[in-house]
């Protein structure tokens, strides 16, 4: 914001769009904030004091191909002392540090940014670091993401997911640059608002794992990759031809048409990306483009 010296009056948030069309109704941003507040209010309703001083019962999926006797998948029980604000990741880390150092899982930033620690917790794909133990029924069943090969314990093979992500060319492609050496490729506020949610993807693969079409059809691009395609296809800074190229990628046989709008991906996305909405919009865009060609 510091570069926008011509608008010193502007508040530090993005909540007051200039466009009268957007000001007329509530902006998507405001709606989201409202939803978030409601969600927070509900979360607070969960009484944490019940669990104070208790232990948490974890049932963790274990599998190790390199140790004979551990090649048959099993569930291990861990009893971890509860602490206020404890997340699933905290709990498995405690189990690893205190009880069994061979317990393996990916984690890095611990704040829902790196996307490493998506697990199948109590039958739902969730980020370990973003899921409060106090909100879960016990015993907490922690498994690796379904529909992906298990490498060890909670670690799954992400190669296929990454392949699908790369298949949609997930990078900005605009050959023409604005005149002048120091000019930037600017995006309008409205356009930024439109793609904003789609930019939040952290490649955790929770959506792909929850999608039962992706489970059946291995070639399906999957929600995350389609969302990534949406992020660039809807970016106005890219030329029309590039957008068409992107639409051609997502409208192939194993692209958007495979989506059956079960909303599983949207429900599990830890970053609240409206994935189904984005996939549906791309379907309509593809149909519109094809009707134009007709």
């Amino acid at each position: 914001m510091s570069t926008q010296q011509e608008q010193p009056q502007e508040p530090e948030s993005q909540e007051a769009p200039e466009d009268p069309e957007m000001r007329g109704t509530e902006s998507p941003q405001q709606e989201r904030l409202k939803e978030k507040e409601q969600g927070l209010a509900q979360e607070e309703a969960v009484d944490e004091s019940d669990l104070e001083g208790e232990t948490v019962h974890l049932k963790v999926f274990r599998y190790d191909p390199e140790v004979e006797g551990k090649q048959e998948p099993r569930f291990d029980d861990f009893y971890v002392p509860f602490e206020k604000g404890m997340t699933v990741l905290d709990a498995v880390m405690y189990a690893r540090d205190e009880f069994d150092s061979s317990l393996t899982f990916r984690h890095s930033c611990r704040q829902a940014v790196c996307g490493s620690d998506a697990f199948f917790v109590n039958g739902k794909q969730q980020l370990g670091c973003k899921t409060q133990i106090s909100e879960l029924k016990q015993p907490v069943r922690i498994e690796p993401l379904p529909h992906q090969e298990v490498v060890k314990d909670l670690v799954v093979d992400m190669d296929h997911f990454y392949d699908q992500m790369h298949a949609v060319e997930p990078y900005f492609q605009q050959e023409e640059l604005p005149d002048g050496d120091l000019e930037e490729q600017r995006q309008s506020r409205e356009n930024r608002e439109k793609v904003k949610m789609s930019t939040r993807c952290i490649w955790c693969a929770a959506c792909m794992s929850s999608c039962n079409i992706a489970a059946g059809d291995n070639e399906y691009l999957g929600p995350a990759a389609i969302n990534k395609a949406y992020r660039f296809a809807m970016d106005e800074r890219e030329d029309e031809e590039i957008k068409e190229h992107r639409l051609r990628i997502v409208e192939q046989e194993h692209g958007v048409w495979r989506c059956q709008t079960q909303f599983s991906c949207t429900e599990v996305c830890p970053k609240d990306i409206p994935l189904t909405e984005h996939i549906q919009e791309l379907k309509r865009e593809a149909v519109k483009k094809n009707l134009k060609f007709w």
Partner: protein
Amino acid sequence: MAEQYSSFSRGGTGWLLQRITAAFLIVVLAFHFFQLHFVNHAADVTFAGTQARMENVGYFLTMVLFLIAGAFHGLNGVYNALVNQGLEGTQKKVVLAVLSLAGIALIAQGIWVAVAMAGWT
């Protein structure tokens, strides 16, 4: 990833047609149920009664379109369901051929029936 691009992909056409037939079927199926269970009771159906309805060209055409839309929507739905389960290659082609033939046979038989009902044979 498939690299074959066409100006109108099969998937997109199928998807759109599935929706268009859906919208049509919703109206006509509701009408059909109402017509033959509430206005006329199914138990009281006679050939003469059917013929009286079918002789009306508008009704006849609606019913034939109803049949075609229903057959397409249903069989395309079945095909999609199977493809979503990961049907591929030769199997997929065979399923498509079988379903197409079944659809054509159903529509042909249905039109023959409709013509017979209308008494135009």
